């Protein structure tokens, strides 16, 4: 990208008064991607989180290879971490020793294998709910911010209304309404519960982008409203939306774990982290590992996504919103 090409710089460079120059980092040579990579390379914790996230994704995708056993197979009950079950796995009359690195639960499932498969549900819910909440929330925010007037009033009253429900409570209410358990219901409930966050954020962005010169130019050129929203406004609001999405993934993972823990999430036979923790609750005095191991899995995953999101926020230089 050439520095002198005026069409590349949508915003004119701001004159920085001399008193600011010493503290502030002014650099317009680097692209966002470059800043992002540099930011991550400089901060070892962020780099580590990045690899942890990649690792968890790979673990979920290749779960059958990463897991030691079938997550639904049953062995000796309540085995300690790093212990062995003696079972006849392949029904040939000989007894094999089966290793349980993280022990077994109250049904005799291998906890390590269940955690590996549980990552699939957590990530699936985390990613798909973000897409769902993004699509619906961004549409609401775009329409409300762009058209203003009664469209804005109606849509934002809806957002205010939704805001009155704490997310988990709303998700529980939606699950109760749909009636029945399952991954799809969980995804639907959590996506809807987080729609308002995206809507508010996008509306706020649109309100100021709408006033920019280039939008007026687009109007003058006779571009349609849909085209202006899609081609001119949305691309300029991308940074905060991406940050919001990365903030939401860990929240959705936590919400799924909470719903499963309450018995209002996926079907009870599905291997998920929340259900494992719930199972271990009854054995907390005798077999702490059933709850603690999947709990640690949640913590590591969510922590990695949180640190990654924070890094992204820094790199994209999105201001932390005080009110949203």
């Amino acid at each position, binding site marked *: 990208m050439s520095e002198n090409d005026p069409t590349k710089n949508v915003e004119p460079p701001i004159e920085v008064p001399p008193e600011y120059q010493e503290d502030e980092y002014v650099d317009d040579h680097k692209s966002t991607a470059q800043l992002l990579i540099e930011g991550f390379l400089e901060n070892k914790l962020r780099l580590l989180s990045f690899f942890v996230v990649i690792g968890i994704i790979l673990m979920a995708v290749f779960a059958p290879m990463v897991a030691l056993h079938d997550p639904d197979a049953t062995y000796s009950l309540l085995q300690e971490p790093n212990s062995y079950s003696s079972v006849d796995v392949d029904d040939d009359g000989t007894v094999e020793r089966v290793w349980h690195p993280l022990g077994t639960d109250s049904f005799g499932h291998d906890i390590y294998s269940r955690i590996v498969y549980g990552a699939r549900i957590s990530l699936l819910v985390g990613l798909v709910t973000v897409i769902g909440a993004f699509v619906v929330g961004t549409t609401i925010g775009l329409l409300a911010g762009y058209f203003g007037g009664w469209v804005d009033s109606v849509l934002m009253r809806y957002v205010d209304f939704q805001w*009155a429900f*704490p997310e988990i409570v709303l998700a529980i209410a939606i699950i*109760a309404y749909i009636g029945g358990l399952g991954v799809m219901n969980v995804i639907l409930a959590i996506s809807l519960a987080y729609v308002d966050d995206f809507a508010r954020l996008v509306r706020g962005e649109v309100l100021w982008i709408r006033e920019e010169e280039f939008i007026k130019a687009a109007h003058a050129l006779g571009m349609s409203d849909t085209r202006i929203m899609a081609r001119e406004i949305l691309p300029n609001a991308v940074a905060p939306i991406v940050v919001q999405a990365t903030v939401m993934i860990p929240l959705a993972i936590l919400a799924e774990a909470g719903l499963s*823990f*309450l*018995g209002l999430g996926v079907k009870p036979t599905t291997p998920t982290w929340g259900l494992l923790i719930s199972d271990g*609750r009854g054995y907390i005095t005798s077999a702490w590992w059933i709850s603690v191991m999947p709990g640690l899995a949640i*913590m590591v995953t969510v*922590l990695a996504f949180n640190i990654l999101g924070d890094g992204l926020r820094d790199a994209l230089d999105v201001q932390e919103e005080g009110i949203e």
Partner: protein
Amino acid sequence: MKNYIIKRTIHAAFIMWLVATTIFVGMRSIPGGPVHAMLGRRADPNQVEAMREQLGLNDPIPIQYVDWITDLLQLDFGTSIRTGQEITQIVAIALPKTAAIGVIGVSIGLLIAVPAGIASAVRKNEPADYVATLIAFLGLSAPPFFIGIVLMVVFSVQLGILPVFGYTPLSEGVIPWFQSVILPGLAVGLPYTAVIMRMMRSSLLEELGKQYMKTARAKGVGSQVRLYKHALQNALIPVVTIAGIQLAVIIGGVVTVEIVFGIKGMGRVIVQAILNRDYPVAETAILVLAGGFIMINLFVDIMYTFIDPRIRYEES
């Protein structure tokens, strides 16, 4: 200022009405109908009829709606279809427990978060800041019910210094009560602490970087006065907002943490009612939680007029 308070109150009442109306509509549009959802698809027709009568579903919709709103205004929520108990009574027993956990959680949160956030901002990029930030991230990353389980293992099972399960009412003494709610309070309070602390830190850092701080310094105002009198007063304003909004974290946490500690509060009432398909109880409990959240945030909005002079003078 008076106008502002009136405006906020009307807005809160409007949202409350919207919530109540949605629950009314939602209840009546449950796929397959609420009675069949509660009794099952092959229910005895006489039973179905009796329940339709009990729930008032045979009246015309506008009359049902007026009845619903008047009942709500009189705090008459009907009876549980499973136990026949008055729902008002169920809520009256459950709500204080949930409120106790919430209050302890918020108190712990604010007591830790505000000083830690200030320290973190003042000592930016020093070891104390890193430690505080790391703890905040850990708090943000652990589900409250998992924090509850870990606290329970450590304090109740291993050390044996706190009760494992249940709730002791305040009437049986402050200390037993406190012992029964401190761990659940901590479990819901830690994620809340993390959010508030991060907000306190970034908000204070922003204020400290502003021009008026330089002016104050140039005028010879001492560093303590600059920090506590000038910067902190402004920095606290967004923190108060977040403290109100993030109560959603507390309420969401209480629902799961109550299950961990076997406390029969609102969360447990909701989950049980949903698993039993006891819709009148579930909808009331959800309405009460949403209503409480709206009221607290209205209170926070009104508090604003006292801490933020910009709102106080706006209208006059």
